[in-house]
C-alpha cells in the first residue's frame, strides 16, 4: 500500500514539475526581449527544472539546406553559428525528415559500425571522433550516449531543431519524450511569431534606408535643376549683355568716326562669343550626361593635337593676359579615350588655368608614362584654390562659380564635367592647389585598349 502511495506521489511530483516548466517557458517566451536571450534562458530552465544538461537550438538557413546553431547550453564550446547540412547526423536528419529521433547507446552503434565494416571487408572512412575533428565538426558532446532531437514545426514550417544530449546511456524515457515533444510545439509557434516580428522590423529598416537613399537622390536632382535655372538665368545673361554693349559700342564709334577703335571692340566680341560658346557647350554636355544620353566611344587619339586645338581657341585670352604656355608633351602622345569628352576636359582645365592665371603668368603641360596609363599634368602659377573651395569643387550643391583674375565668369560646371568625363573614360583627376602659388591638375588617361 505504502509503495503504491509513494508511486502516486512520485508521479504527481513529476507532473507538478512539468506544469511548472511549461509555465516558466511560456512566461519567458512572452517577454519583450531579444529572441536569442529568451531562448538561452529557456535552455537554462530545461536544465535547472528538468535536468537536461546539454541542449542546443538550431535554426534553418534561408534556403533550408543547413541548420545553424542559434543557442546552446552546457557544452564546452557554444558552437553558435556552426552549420549542419540537412541529412547529416541526428540534427540534420531531424531537419530533413521533420520527425523526432530518440537514440540510446550511441557508442554501441559506433562500435557496431566498426565491427560490421571490418567484417564485410569495407573500411569505414571515419569514426565519430575523427569525424568531429574534421573540417566540418558536428556540434555536440564528444562522449554522447543518448540523444533526443525534435523538429519545431509551426504552420507547416520547420522553425528549429531542439537537440538534447546526454553522456548517460539510460537517460531519456518515453515519458520525457512525450513531455518535451509537446513543450517544443508550444515553443515553435512562439519562435515563429518572434521571427516574423524580427523580419518585419528588418523590413522597416530596409525600407527606411531605401527612402533615405531616394531622398538623397531627389535632393541631388533638385540641386541639378536649381543649377540649370541659375545658369540659364544668370551666367548666360552676362556674356550676352557684353555682346549687347559691344554692338552699342560699334554704333557709337562708327557715328563718331573712330573706326580704329572697332578692332578693340572686335576682341571684346571674340571673348564674349568664346565664353558663350564654351558655356553652351558645357551646358549641353552636362544636360546630356545627366540624362545618360552621352555615348562614350573611346579610341586612340593624339592628346598633343587636342591641346594645340584648345590653345588656339583661347589664343586671344592667352595673348591678352600675356600668359606663356610651356607645352612639354612629346609628339604622338596617344591615349585611349572618347574624342569629344577629352576635348571638353582639356578645354575646361585649360580655360580654368588661363582664367586664374595672373598677367604674365605661365602654364606648363607635362606628361608621365606608366605601363598602361598616361598622366597629363597641367600646372598654373595663378591664384590657387582655398581649402574650403577644394572640399566642394566636385559638388554641384550650393556651388558658386569663382570669378577669374580679369573677372572672367564661369558656371561652376567645368570641374563636375571634368570628373564625370574622366570617370566615363576609366581615368582619374587629381587636383592640388595652394592659394597664391597656383593649381596643378593631373589627368590620368588609359594609354591602350582595356
Amino acid at each position, binding site marked *: 500500500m505504502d509503495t503504491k502511495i509513494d508511486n502516486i506521489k512520485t508521479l504527481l511530483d513529476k507532473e507538478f514539475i512539468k506544469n511548472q516548466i511549461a509555465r516558466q517557458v511560456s512566461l519567458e517566451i512572452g517577454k519583450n526581449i531579444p529572441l536569442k536571450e529568451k531562448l538561452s534562458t529557456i535552455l537554462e530552465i530545461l536544465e535547472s527544472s528538468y535536468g537536461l544538461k546539454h541542449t542546443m537550438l538550431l535554426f534553418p538557413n534561408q534556403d533550408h539546406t543547413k541548420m545553424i546553431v542559434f543557442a546552446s547550453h552546457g557544452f564546452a564550446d557554444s558552437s553558435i553559428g556552426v552549420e549542419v547540412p540537412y*541529412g*547529416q547526423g541526428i540534427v540534420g536528419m531531424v531537419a530533413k*525528415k521533420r520527425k523526432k529521433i*530518440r537514440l540510446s547507446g*550511441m557508442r554501441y*552503434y559506433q562500435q557496431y559500425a566498426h565491427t560490421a565494416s571490418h567484417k564485410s571487408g569495407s573500411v*569505414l572512412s*571515419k569514426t565519430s571522433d575523427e569525424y568531429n575533428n574534421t573540417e566540418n565538426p558536428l556540434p555536440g558532446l564528444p562522449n554522447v550516449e543518448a540523444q533526443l532531437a525534435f523538429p519545431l514545426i509551426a504552420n507547416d514550417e520547420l522553425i528549429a531543431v531542439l537537440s538534447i544530449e546526454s553522456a548517460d546511456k539510460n537517460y531519456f*524515457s518515453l515519458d520525457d519524450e512525450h513531455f518535451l515533444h509537446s513543450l517544443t510545439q508550444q515553443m515553435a509557434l512562439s519562435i515563429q511569431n518572434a521571427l516574423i516580428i524580427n523580419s518585419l522590423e528588418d523590413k522597416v529598416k530596409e525600407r527606411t534606408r531605401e527612402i533615405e537613399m531616394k531622398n538623397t537622390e531627389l535632393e541631388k536632382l533638385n540641386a541639378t535643376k536649381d543649377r540649370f535655372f541659375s545658369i540659364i538665368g544668370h551666367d548666360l545673361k552676362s556674356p550676352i549683355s557684353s555682346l549687347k554693349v559691344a554692338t552699342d559700342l560699334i554704333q557709337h564709334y562708327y557715328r563718331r568716326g573712330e573706326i580704329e577703335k572697332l578692332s578693340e571692340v572686335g576682341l571684346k566680341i571674340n571673348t564674349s562669343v568664346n565664353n558663350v560658346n564654351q558655356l553652351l557647350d558645357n551646358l549641353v554636355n552636362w544636360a546630356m550626361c545627366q540624362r545618360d544620353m552621352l555615348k562614350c566611344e573611346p579610341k586612340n587619339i593624339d592628346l598633343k593635337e587636342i591641346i594645340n586645338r584648345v590653345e588656339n581657341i583661347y589664343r586671344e585670352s592667352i595673348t591678352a593676359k600675356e600668359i606663356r604656355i610651356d607645352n612639354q608633351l612629346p609628339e604622338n602622345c596617344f591615349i585611349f579615350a572618347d574624342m569629344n569628352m577629352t576635348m571638353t576636359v582639356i578645354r575646361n582645365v585649360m580655360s580654368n588655368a588661363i582664367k586664374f592665371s595672373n598677367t604674365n603668368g605661365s602654364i606648363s603641360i607635362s606628361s608621365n608614362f606608366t605601363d598602361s596609363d598616361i598622366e597629363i599634368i597641367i600646372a598654373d602659377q595663378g591664384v590657387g584654390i582655398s581649402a574650403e573651395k577644394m572640399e566642394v569643387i566636385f559638388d554641384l550643391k550650393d556651388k558658386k562659380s569663382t570669378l577669374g583674375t580679369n573677372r572672367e565668369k564661369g558656371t561652376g560646371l567645368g570641374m563636375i564635367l571634368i570628373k564625370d568625363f574622366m570617370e566615363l573614360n576609366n581615368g582619374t583627376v587629381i587636383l592640388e592647389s595652394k592659394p597664391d602659388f597656383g593649381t596643378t591638375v593631373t589627368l590620368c588617361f588609359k594609354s591602350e585598349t582595356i
Partner: protein
Amino acid sequence: MISSELLGAFQGIFPGVITTVSKENIPNLSYISQVHYIDNEHLAISWQFFNKTYKNIQDNPNFSVVVTSPTTFSMWKIDMNFIESLTEGDLFDEIEMALEAIASMYKAEDIFKLQAIMIGKIVSIEQQFDGYEN
C-alpha cells in the same frame, strides 16, 4: 500486459537476443540492437542484415526475444509469432530515419540500411530474472 518496467527494455539501451529455429530444428541466436514496442500485443524487429534469422523466420514463424531493463536489469523472455514484414509505414520510417542519421555520422550508409521491419505477435512473456530494486 506490458509493465512500465518492461517498457523500458524496449529503448535499445541493452541489446536483445533473438532465437529462431530452422526447418531442420537447428536453433540460431543473434544479438539485435533494439526490440520495438508497437502495442501490448505486438513488437517489431528491424531487419538489416541477419540473413539466417530472416530465413529461419520465413520457414518457422515461432521465435523468441530476450530483453533487459536498463534500470533494474530484469530480464524477460518473450515468445512471439511472426505476422508480416513491412517496408513502409510510420514505425518503418522512424527506425529507418534513426539508422540513416547514425549512418551519416559514421559514413556507413551500407551497414545501417534498413531492409524491413518484422512484426510479431506476443504469445507469452516470462520474467527470467527479477532484477534489483531501483
